[in-house]
Structure formats: C-alpha cells, structure tokens
C-alpha cells in the first residue's frame, strides 16, 4: 500500500512560472514531511522539509504548504528556472525512523 501519494507524475512549466506538486498521506502518526530533489544520475537531496505544527514553510523560491486536516502537503516552486528541471519526491516519516516516499514528479522547465 502506497503510504504517500504524489501527483502529477510529470509537469512541464514555462520559465518564470509556478510549479506545484501535491502529496497526500493517510497515517496521522507521520510527523516530518521532507521534499527531495533528484537530478539524473545523482542521489536525492533534501530540498525543504516541514513539521505538522506549521502550515507553511518558505526557503527562497521553494514553499511547502501543509494542510493537516486534509492530510495533504504541496511544494510550490516560484519563478521556475530551467535549472529546477529534476525529479521531485515528497516523503513522510514518524520520528525520523522510516521514510516513505511518493512516486516522484518529473519537472521540466522550458526556457
């Protein structure tokens, strides 16, 4: 059973546009929600993360929005750039012991 559901599977955005990737989870015990960025041929790298006690976290052009009641969280990339083209994974964890990943979103930013 997929613990974390992610959509869309792929996304094409014009340079300067906003990229939005959504995730949903079922297990209310999850208490840590990171987003990872993966470039071809590389391992995933942490981009930004949020705990459920806040509804939004922003780091530069990247923002996580968190809706605890709906059990959903999303990644917003403002002013998307071609260098943002990568695969993005959401994940969820409880107490940081085991991480469950979404199925990934392949983002392409067109110049």
């Amino acid at each position, binding site marked *: 059973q997929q613990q974390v559901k992610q959509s869309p599977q792929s996304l094409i955005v014009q340079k300067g546009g906003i990229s939005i990737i959504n995730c949903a989870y079922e297990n209310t015990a999850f208490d840590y929600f*990171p987003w990872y960025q993966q470039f071809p041929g590389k*391992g995933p*790298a*942490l981009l930004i993360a949020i705990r459920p006690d806040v509804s939004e976290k922003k780091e530069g052009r990247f923002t996580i929005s968190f809706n605890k009641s709906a059990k959903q969280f999303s990644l917003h990339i403002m002013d998307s750039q071609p260098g943002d083209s990568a695969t993005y994974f959401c994940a969820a964890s409880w*107490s*940081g012991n085991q991480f469950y*990943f979404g*199925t990934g979103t*392949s983002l392409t930013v067109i110049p």
Partner: protein
Amino acid sequence: DTAVSQTPKYLVTQMGNDKSIKCEQNLGHDTMYWYKQDSKKFLKIMFSYNNKELIINETVPNRFSPKSPDKAHLNLHINSLELGDSAVYFCASRETGTAISEQFFGPGTRLTVL
C-alpha cells in the same frame, strides 16, 4: 571529501551471480539505509541499520543481506541475482537523536542483471 560514497557506480552481471555493493559515510552518522529505485523511479526502503544493528527490514527477498562492519559502513550483498533486481540502489545516512535530521544519499549504484 564525499559525504556518502558507494562502489561500484555501475554493476553489470549475469543472472545467478552473487554481487556486493559497498557504502561508506564520513559524516559520523549513526544510522544508514539502503533504498531501491526501480525503472519508474519509485524509491523504496530496504534496510536500516542503527549503530550496526538492524532496525528496519522491509519485505525484501532473503537473497539480499546487509552487513555493517562498523557504523560508517553498510554493505549490501545479493545472492543468486535475478532480472528483477535490476535497479539503482542508494545508500543513505542520518544522525538520529532528539531532532529529526536530514538523510544524505549516496550517488547510487546502477545494477543491471542480464
């Protein structure tokens, strides 16, 4: 000064062979993981070790055996390789404690079974 390193980067082998992938981290972390990423890029945890002790063992065929000689190393040995084992295998590490900390991933090992 690579944080998490894996060897080899590529591994091509025949069905039925036995192979090993090595992982080392120089971050001083106490927990290490192995993940499998399939052709659709789905990342699934396989094992987790904390201070050389196995703490997570997902439903993985017993042909896969992790070994942790010390807390900086977590190797993965695979017996009787099958076509379905073809994937990219990632090692990761993190420091456990009172605050949740970031996982650092290695560059991956692409295993191809012919």
